[in-house]
């Protein structure tokens, strides 16, 4: 029974595919998997927009949208109708083709990322040997579409926003990938399915998730910080800092193209959260051994919604960083920390189990953290300001 419920979507797909002639079956199977991704994640996007607006409102002691439908839950529908019926304006001097292609490319790349994320046991669109590599390669293409948008608009705000986006995303890609290297080292595989399977065992009631190791915890936090910067979310939303550069790279977009940017950004956020779940939080595996009867896909989406809630929480808390703070944080803090995480993961791999292994792996990370944060505090200390040219 539990087995059947766990595999219900897989069984349904096999049942549907069996109606087609044998020649068509592989193609139909792929199309069905893609259709599922195309339905589930945009729906999740719609739900997230209303959750985010309500959550942020409650953080600021407001009600949030509560007029459309019961308790405002139909607000995404109203938003969709609004963005569909708005006028689509293309600037006269814009590069029309690139301007048109940029939002499409963003959404397509965002969807491509879902190909390697296992959302349940036996539920992955493509089980690639180099799945993690594929994921980061595709997410790097998002930068291209953002730069296309900023460049083709022929607007200085768009261009500034796009430049900021590229600088930020390239800088944070380094710690993002390096922190996942530690996982790939420990799991001994780049395939997302294998990585999840390595974490699906239990000692006692506790799962073998990588986040429950000292290097895994540090790696997870660093991964999530870098993921926030990768998906251009607050406090790293400099590319669209409305107080400085209007709306950044999508200043010149309106109507449905603007909605596509919004969709692409959220899909990117879900995908990278899905990757964090796959790498550190044990993918679809249950958090305790006595909860394994709950379907695997339920656990994936429960974890995903939790991470989305954290993203919303952080967005409601932190103000936007300054550009130089952003850069120095990436290169002076994130990068050394991720390198230490890799070192610690190597120690973890070769040391025998026990309390000593925990201490030996945790000490270098904690020590580096204290060292780096005291260095940053030193540079932040208030001094008498000196002027180069004013005096």
């Amino acid at each position, binding site marked *: 029974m539990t087995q059947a419920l766990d595999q219900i979507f897989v069984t349904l797909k096999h049942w549907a595919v069996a109606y087609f002639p044998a020649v068509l079956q592989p193609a139909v199977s792929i199309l069905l998997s893609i259709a599922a991704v195309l339905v589930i994640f945009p729906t999740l996007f719609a739900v997230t927009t209303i959750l985010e607006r309500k959550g942020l409102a*409650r*953080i600021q002691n407001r009600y949030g949208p509560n007029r459309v439908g019961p308790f405002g839950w139909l607000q995404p529908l109203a938003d969709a109708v609004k963005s569909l019926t708005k006028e689509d304006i293309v600037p006269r001097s814009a590069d029309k083709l690139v301007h048109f292609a940029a939002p499409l490319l963003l959404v397509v790349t965002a969807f491509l990322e879902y190909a390697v994320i296992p959302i349940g046991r036996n539920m992955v669109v493509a089980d690639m040997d180099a799945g993690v590599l594929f994921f980061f390669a595709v997410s790097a293409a998002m930068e291209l579409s953002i730069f296309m948008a900023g460049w083709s608009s022929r607007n200085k705000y768009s261009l500034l926003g796009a430049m900021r986006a590229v600088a930020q995303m390239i800088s944070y890609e380094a710690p993002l990938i390096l922190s996942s290297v530690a996982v790939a080292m420990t799991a001994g595989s780049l395939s997302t399915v294998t990585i999840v399977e390595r974490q699906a065992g239990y000692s006692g009631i506790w799962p073998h998730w990588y986040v429950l190791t000292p290097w895994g915890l540090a790696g997870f936090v660093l991964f999530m910080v870098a993921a926030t910067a990768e998906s251009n979310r607050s406090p790293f939303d400099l590319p669209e800092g409305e107080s400085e550069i209007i709306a950044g790279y999508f200043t010149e977009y309106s109507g449905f193209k603007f909605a596509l940017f919004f969709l692409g950004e959220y899909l990117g956020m879900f995908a990278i959260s899905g990757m964090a779940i796959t790498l550190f939080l044990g993918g679809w595996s249950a958090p305790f051994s006595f909860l394994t009867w709950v379907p695997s896909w339920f656990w994936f989406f429960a974890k995903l919604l939790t991470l989305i809630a954290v993203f919303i*929480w*952080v967005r409601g*808390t*932190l103000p936007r960083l300054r550009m130089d703070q952003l850069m120095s944080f990436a290169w002076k803090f994130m990068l050394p920390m991720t390198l230490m995480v890799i070192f610690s993961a190597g120690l973890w791999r070769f040391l025998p189990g026990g309390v000593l292994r925990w201490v030996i792996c945790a000490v270098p990370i904690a020590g580096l953290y204290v060292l780096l944060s005291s260095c940053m505090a030193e540079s932040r200390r208030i001094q008498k300001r000196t002027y180069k040219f004013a005096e």
Partner: protein
Amino acid sequence: MLGEGIVKGLAETARNFFGSYAEKERLTTVQFPEERLVQPEATRVFPFLVYDTDDAEKGLRCVACKICEVECPPKCITIEKSTEKKPDFTGKPQFFPAKFDIDVSVCMSCQICVEVCPFDAIKMDTAFELSTDDRFGGLLWEKERLAKSNEYYHSIHPTEAAEVDEQLAEKKAKAEAKPAAPAATTGAAAAR
């Protein structure tokens, strides 16, 4: 230590988030069409014409003196004087406005018409939802629409209306005393 402030901030926002569900007084929003704040007594939005008795036509206090029309800064009042006269509240025959229009879209709610009116005939209303889908007729309010009873005036500005009623009663008593004792009036005029 790096991250200390972030943790503090996260705790504060979490407290706000859960607190807004637990304590209603955290939410300061008034959900307008359903909930309304009590308006202060001195609220003023748009002028109206006061009439006594039950008849809006006969009891209108306005005597078409046109002072408000002249004083109105944005010139939103249009008055046409009547040709015949009708008795006012003291019984004295007076002119009355044949036409009294105020343009809602031009009025700036300055209350100068109220200040200058010697007859307490025009006062400020508190009704503020004046929007309409008829941009010409709907925004030009005529005499019939502007006229509101003294009881209504009492219901929106009780203190002010009571004062006005007192003054009017005094005036009326003086006016009634006049024909009965013409010598006293001439005496008073001489004294003045």
